[in-house]
């Protein structure tokens, strides 16, 4: 008997360890995510594997883009420093699993908000940071000027596991065109295959087409067709079940948009503390107790504006100045003819 005592003890110890883990999992406290983030000292953010303008790393490993700025804003609000973000590049296929399995706390990866994603798989979309729509890119010398020129047998390259795949089917079905879908896991491979001539058209969100076009061997030989075949509201996502964290991410984004609306930017934020407009004073933390409601201090929004900038600055820096989409289109404020409209921060 004693011969197996050692094995037995180690087994008991193992079981005991397992049960400790289990009890901890069950005692989910209010905003465990916030607590964990503060303890770790960085925000865990899931981004794309490289989409210029949205989330793209330079040679030194610095991430930039409008999606990246959402995570930076949260880091500024929660940790006081916009640079305290750990970015995890994810493929379209991996992104939701990474979030639900607790590898990341925010998914800010040009992800389309749909009912089934929001309701079915344990995710919560907190807002829209880019209004997009699916389009088609073709070769200029093909003579296509509209999607109505497409003929039976056309082959279309796209990314695997995206709403694009579904929209593409809806579109070609409604037109009664038979097509050949060629779907890759990584965007770079889609670009390479389209570039090689494997496909007649490359379809994805129009912002994506504009960004990926730069990667083609001769970008000027390609053109994005004018039609938009779907609504693609892209926005940050969090795990379902932590409403405090959800609020923090939602309002970090909203503050950036509202700051632009009230003309508060990274340069003038400090001086706005003495503004006459109470809405502006609330935005920079000079009035009200908005931070406390989120479990943060009162300077959280000021830090976002100072360190990351307002939405307009972020857009200009990442998307307009890089030549991807100089025209803001629907992503202009509602006061200027766009559809960016966020609830008031009060």
């Amino acid at each position, binding site marked *: 008997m004693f011969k197996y005592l050692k*094995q037995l003890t180690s087994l008991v110890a193992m079981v005991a360890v397992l049960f400790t883990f289990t009890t901890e999992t069950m005692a989910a406290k209010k905003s465990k995510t916030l607590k964990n983030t503060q303890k770790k000292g960085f925000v865990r953010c899931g981004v794309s594997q490289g989409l210029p303008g949205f989330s793209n790393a330079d040679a030194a490993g610095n991430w930039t883009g409008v999606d990246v700025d959402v995570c930076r804003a949260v880091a500024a609000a929660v940790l006081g420093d916009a640079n305290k973000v750990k970015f995890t590049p994810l493929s379209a296929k991996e992104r939701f699993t990474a979030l*639900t399995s607790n590898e990341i706390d925010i998914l800010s990866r040009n992800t389309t908000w749909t009912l089934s994603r929001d309701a079915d798989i344990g995710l919560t979309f907190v807002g829209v940071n880019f209004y997009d729509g699916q389009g088609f890119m073709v070769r200029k010398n093909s003579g296509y000027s509209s999607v109505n020129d497409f003929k039976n*047998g056309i082959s279309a390259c796209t990314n695997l596991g*995206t709403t694009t795949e579904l929209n593409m*089917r809806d579109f070609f079905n409604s037109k009664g065109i038979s097509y050949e*879908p060629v779907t890759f896991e990584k965007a770079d491979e889609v670009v390479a295959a389209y570039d090689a001539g*494997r496909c*007649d058209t490359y379809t994805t969100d129009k912002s994506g087409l504009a960004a990926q076009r730069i990667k083609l061997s001769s970008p000027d030989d390609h053109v994005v067709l004018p039609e938009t075949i779907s609504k693609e509201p892209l926005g940050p996502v969090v795990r379902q079940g932590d409403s405090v964290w959800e609020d923090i991410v939602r309002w970090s984004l909203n503050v950036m948009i509202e700051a632009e609306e009230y003309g508060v930017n990274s340069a003038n934020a400090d001086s706005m503390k003495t503004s006459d407009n109470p809405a502006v004073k609330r935005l920079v933390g000079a009035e009200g107790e908005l931070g406390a409601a989120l479990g943060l201090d009162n300077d959280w929004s000021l830090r976002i504006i100072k360190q990351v900038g307002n939405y307009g600055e972020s857009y200009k820096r990442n998307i307009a100045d890089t030549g991807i989409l100089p025209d803001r289109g629907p992503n202009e404020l509602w006061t200027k003819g766009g559809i960016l409209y966020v609830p008031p921060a009060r």
Partner: protein
Amino acid sequence: MKLDYKNLLPQIITLLAVVLVFGFFSYNAQVNMENRGITFGYGFLSQESSFDVQFSLIEFDGSHSYFRAYLVGLLNTILVSVIGIILATIIGVVVGIARLSKNYLIEKTAAVYVEFFRNIPLLLQIFFWYFAALRALPLPQDAEPMLGVFFLTIKGFFVPAFIWNNLDIFIYSVIAAIISIIFVKIYARKKQENEGKQTPVLFISIGLLLILPLLSFLIGGSSFSIDIPVIKQLSKSGFTYEGGIGLPPELIALALALSLYTATFIAECVRAGVQGVGKGQKEAAASIGLTPNQVLKLVIMPQALRIIIPPTTNQYLNLTKNSSLAAAIAYPDLVLIFAGTALMQTGRAIEIVSITMLTYLTLSISISILMNWYNKKIAIKEK
């Protein structure tokens, strides 16, 4: 049999530990899924899939269910595995024998091939065949027809298709031919055992395989016409082929990469097998008057196969599992369609990954069983 408690105890403890660990994992998953509002169930399999697939052996479009999407992926995985296994075996045997050649050039070429292909990661080879080789292929409008009817282009390999009339009669005739060949074989063996006379089984078999299907055309009423691919203009600069069968370049690149990679290992198995047969066996066989062909067929190969089969089984299993790298180059296999698109659209990670794992397990075990059966059949029967 007397129960040996001393040996039983550690086994019970191990079993208990395994059950506990699994229990913990499923309990933990359950609790976490509940916390995040994720439901569990296989009901989604009957839902409409609403995505299309580039290449499938059975009819499929978005109006079919996720289960059918699973079948499409499974069949595509099996297709590329079967093609890969056949090609890898042929190349492997040829190269393996070439490595034993006394001709310096042949031996060295085979050796270089083996060392080169088995030492480069498979994924890189797949990328090479797909992206590098693909770029070198002509656009559909520039493709030179091979034998007038085959077109190898960047959009795929377009081959003529057979359109059959009364295909069933043709198939019956082939089945009849196969059955009669089996009878001829049995008869030939009996005749050799009883009278010591040999029957030219091979020639009779070939004859049967030619004549019976031919009869089905002449009297049975089966016939076929050939559907040759025709070029079609899509736009000013874009073309494709219509008609015939279009094999996607993804399938070709994947099958090529898998078979060239796996063939190197099979070649080594074959070389080891042949070298493992004692030199004396060959000399003894020659000394009793067997022709060189008979020596190879009756003495060397049966013994070499015993050494070749078990490691080759491993290679077949590897090839099948490696086919899951297809996802990298858009070949719609099980991983791409089911563990990729379907998983993404439904979000049912645990369900889909479990089904996919079970499927690969079943595939691998089936190959194992088949190969073990064959191995037993050719093993030395000690009397």
